[in-house]
């Protein structure tokens, strides 16, 4: 309590001194998470954790640009004002740190702090090693081999092999204050209660499992992103109907992911529904092990042509973007695939006939699905809809239903593993924000289980060559061209059953103003304010 008062007093005092316009209101948000995500820096609870307690209270060396709703967001300088790869040795990256940045506890951010934070994730012998943050952060930076401070404002990070996607990896890593950790007795649990990062928000009050309150950091280094609100309150409300009731009764001002069937009534009650495309897709990941019917490109294309994507959009009350590829339409890496994902049952039947199937000889196969799960949208009705669509093209699907955590484990284990129960595909939705999570991890042959999550054991030297090229192309524009080429190959060879993209709906009270929904899993709460 005392700390909370102190922080509020300090924040209010500085605000007055700075002579800024009065901050506007308190925004209360109902999250879908069942607990407050970790507050120590590297968050848990997936994309939602990073959205609410990562990029609010902390920064990475490289941040995501969350300022535009129109274009897909890309990387921008964060705590590093510039970075470049060594011209002679492409495994050496040099980061120039932004001068004058301070953590919330007043200590200075410098090269030693960067090294300290990498040790917190990667070095089990380091006193500040934190298993919980390591579990979240370590797998995000697989390329890192070593790191050192060259001088107080310069850090060098060496990768295991040349990797031009490294900036996307380092954008995951949040910088916590070493001085604050020392001050609270070198204890991460104590740090969790009184955390300090460099972000635009300070964590002021934290009641485990119930709520966390953030107040603006008026000294934030990016003056454009100093929050306009007085206070941001985050409440975990995992139950969709509870979130809707909380919004409608005025207990919160904003809810994440309202249930699709509640959207109409929320609109009628005067709530704003904000949506936008973001790097997410809803697909069937197809197995390519011997004997899988999906090894025939005609069958893969037929399935993609049989799906009525507009029908699915209607099923979801309009809350979906029909797929034109693996990435949402208009994404900078979409390119120009020749194969169009249209609804054409006649063409699908033609392809199936060529592949040796017919009305009396349908293709019968099994697909793994889960009845719920993070990002899975409405998996049961959607999968049944796709099942009916495919039946039109003589593809008879039976479902193997498992719970979400089991599906994740099967996804890690691979299509050949007995836990996959002979299924030739699984319904899995993907976070596709960067080259690795978006494209490489699904299909690189060296990432077949157990090394990675190429669940279907796809292997194509041409694709592997393209992935290598992405990692070795350090010019951004050139790299984009390679990524487009990869995506064209994804679509033209119908490597997945590509169905739809989520639109990330949020419902908010008419009083909430100034929010720009970026095409990203993360969002910026700094421009938001409450109308009087």
């Amino acid at each position, binding site marked *: 309590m005392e700390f909370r008062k102190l922080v509020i007093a300090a924040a209010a005092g500085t605000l007055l001194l700075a002579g800024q316009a009065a901050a506007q209101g308190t925004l209360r948000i109902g999250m879908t998470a069942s*607990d407050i995500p970790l507050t120590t820096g590297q968050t848990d609870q997936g994309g939602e954790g990073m959205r609410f307690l990562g990029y609010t209270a902390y920064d990475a060396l490289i941040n995501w640009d969350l300022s535009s709703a129109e274009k897909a967001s890309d990387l921008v300088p964060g705590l590093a004002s510039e970075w470049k790869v060594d011209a002679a040795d492409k495994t050496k990256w040099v980061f120039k740190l932004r001068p004058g940045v301070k953590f919330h506890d007043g200590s200075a951010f410098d090269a030693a702090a960067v090294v300290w934070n990498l040790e917190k994730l990667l070095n089990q012998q380091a006193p500040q090693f934190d298993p919980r943050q*390591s*579990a979240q952060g370590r797998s995000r930076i697989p390329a890192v081999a070593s790191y050192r401070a060259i001088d107080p404002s310069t850090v060098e990070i060496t990768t295991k092999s040349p990797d031009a996607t490294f900036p996307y990896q380092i954008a995951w890593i949040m910088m916590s204050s070493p001085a604050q950790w020392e001050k609270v007795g070198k204890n991460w649990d104590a740090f969790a209660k009184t955390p300090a990062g460099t972000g635009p928000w300070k964590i002021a009050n934290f009641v485990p499992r119930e709520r966390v309150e953030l107040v603006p950091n008026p000294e934030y280094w990016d003056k454009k992103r100093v929050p306009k609100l007085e206070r941001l309150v985050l409440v975990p409300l995992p139950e969709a109907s509870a979130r809707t009731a909380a919004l*409608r009764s005025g207990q919160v001002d904003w809810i994440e992911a309202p249930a699709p069937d509640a959207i109409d009534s929320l609109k009628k009650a005067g709530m704003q529904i904000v949506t936008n495309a973001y790097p997410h897709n809803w697909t069937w990941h197809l197995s390519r092990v011997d004997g899988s019917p999906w090894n025939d490109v005609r069958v893969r294309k037929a399935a993609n042509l049989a799906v009525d994507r507009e029908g699915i959009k209607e099923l979801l009350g309009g809350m979906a973007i029909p797929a034109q590829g693996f990435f949402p339409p208009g994404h900078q890496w979409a390119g120009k695939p020749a194969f169009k994902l249209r609804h054409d049952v006649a063409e699908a039947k033609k392809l199936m006939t060529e592949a040796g199937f017919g009305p009396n000889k349908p293709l019968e196969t099994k697909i793994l699905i889960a009845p719920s799960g993070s990002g899975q949208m409405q998996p049961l009705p959607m999968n049944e809809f796709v099942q009916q669509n495919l039946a039109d093209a003589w593809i008879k699907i039976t479902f193997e239903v498992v719970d979400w955590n089991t599906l994740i484990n099967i996804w890690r284990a691979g299509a050949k593993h007995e836990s996959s129960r002979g299924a030739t595909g699984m319904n899995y939705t993907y976070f596709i924000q960067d080259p690795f999570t978006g494209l490489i991890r699904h299909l690189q042959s060296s990432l077949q289980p157990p090394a990675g999550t190429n669940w279907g054991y796809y292997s194509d030297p041409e694709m592997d060559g393209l992935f290598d090229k992405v990692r070795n192309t350090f010019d951004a524009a050139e790299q984009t061209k390679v990524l487009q080429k990869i995506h064209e190959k994804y679509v033209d060879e119908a490597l997945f059953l590509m169905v739809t993209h989520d639109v990330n709906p949020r419902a908010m009270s008419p009083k909430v103003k100034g929010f720009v929904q970026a095409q990203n899993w993360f969002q910026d709460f700094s421009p938001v304010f409450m109308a009087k």
Partner: protein
Amino acid sequence: MLQYLLRRFVYAIPIALGVSVVCFALVHISPGDPLASVLPPDASLEMQQIMRQVYGFDRPLPVQFGFWLWRALAGDLGVSIATGRPVAGEVWHAFGNTFMLAALAAAFGFSAGALLGLVAGYWRGGWIDRLASTLSIAGISVPHYWLGMVLAIVFSVQLNWLPATGAGPGGSADWTWDWAHVRFLVLPALTMSVIPLGIVARSVRALVGDILSQEFVDALRAKGLPESGIFLHILKNAAPTSLAVMGLQLGYLLGGSILIETVFAWPGTGFLLGNAILQRDLPLLQGTILVLAMFFVVLNLLVDVAQTWLDPRIKRA
């Protein structure tokens, strides 16, 4: 009596041990990776092995159980995998919240249920009986998460009288017994009271009916005892069994309801348990189950003692 208490207390030890073995084993047999809550889905196998080591899941199960039990005996239930906070603290805090809810729900459910049952049993077959029976069957049958949602829609969304979720304007950490906080209790407590209300009403009704048909009632009537006196006799005869039913129900209430606490985002043991299950947070799951099981044991003991005290015919050999 003291000897009896002591013996019961000694019996509780193997029960507690049995409960901890069963809950440890069940949690470990059930599918799902205990590291699912801490690892991102695409963590590599190497990464999983490192984490397994860090959390001690690479050791044989009996060894893990031994460590866990040893620490549990000292009151240390370990640390939650997902949050890193001590399990004991989490469970006690949640139990405090559930206790408030259960106490209110029991106060309402038991008194209303006993009254309904008494009335229905005494005037068996009449319209009051039919009304009371309908109410109590409805109470048992209605899915309470559904009732919770309906109550929230009516009283929070439509009428805006009571809050729909949470435990107080600032969370349960700064709870005080004033209307600003207590109003958060009303809807979940009401929803929670419906089942014990139905069960208590039905048990009491049956008991009263049974007692009324016994010969001693005829004898009392023949003796010329006024109806109010007979009523008192019935009350006293029905009390021990009703108390046993209520004790069990109180146990269920104290266990918290995963569904109700989730619908109302009430930070009690049910909510905690639901979270622990969804996140495969084994230490939290084991700790919560153990504490709840121990409460059942203690509660049963208390009910037995109260029964003996109320009805001297029940001799506990």
